[in-house]
């Protein structure tokens, strides 16, 4: 039962990573690519560590895996704002619907 839940979570994680990459390839400018990569990849990582934590042999091992996620969230938040700010400072204008 736990194994099935773990497999489902791991596959969901892989799906979110995949959609992050799809967003990176499909979205028209750096700002929207940032949305896709930061948000979708983090959810992917969250699903993966949760799925693996379910299989852990002890509580401490499970918590260690789960500890990775908030660190990655903080990293993505800080780095994506830094990139967005840099893009804005470089004068990169966001893509708008009427441009096409």
């Amino acid at each position: 039962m736990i194994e099935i839940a773990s497999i489902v979570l791991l596959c969901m994680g892989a799906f979110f990573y995949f959609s992050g990459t799809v967003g990176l390839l499909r979205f028209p400018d750096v700002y929207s690519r940032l949305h896709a990569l930061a948000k979708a990849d983090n959810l992917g990582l969250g699903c993966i560590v949760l799925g693996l934590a379910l299989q852990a042999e002890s509580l401490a091992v499970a918590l260690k895996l789960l500890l990775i996620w908030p660190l990655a969230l903080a990293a993505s938040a800080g780095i994506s704002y830094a990139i967005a700010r840099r893009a804005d400072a470089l004068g990169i204008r966001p893509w708008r619907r009427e441009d096409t």
Partner: protein
Amino acid sequence: MTAALLRRGILFALLWWILSEGRAGSWGLGAIAVAVALWASVRLLLPASGRISVAGLFAFMGYFIWNSVRGGAQVALIALRGRQALQPDMLEMQLSLRSGAARILMVNALGLMPGSLGVRLEGDRLRLHVLDARMPIAVAVRALEARIEVIFREQP
């Protein structure tokens, strides 16, 4: 002061227990690590300044993590539907947060909330990019701001 030290000591010991995967033989080294961490934490951040609400911080973390999950699921669906699902725009908003730390937390946290991305912060002017201008982003920004006000005790 002693209560704050005790709280931190327990937190660091818990962290060591997690990092050592609960191995009983590691506590000799663990005691040293907890002591050093406690010393560093007192040097860098004096306890009992009372400026930050711990309950507010935990409430914010719960809210932040839940909304980052929502944001990830939402952007995944938009990515699979492709470019035609996008209607990006730049918004300018006025922040009412007073302290610098609160504003920095705000503009960084926005990047993981559904549909929003902090782009620039100048004084209390916030510029953010939104994936879909039809989403009620302004309401969400105000809700996040209210949560951060609670952490930094900045109730208007």
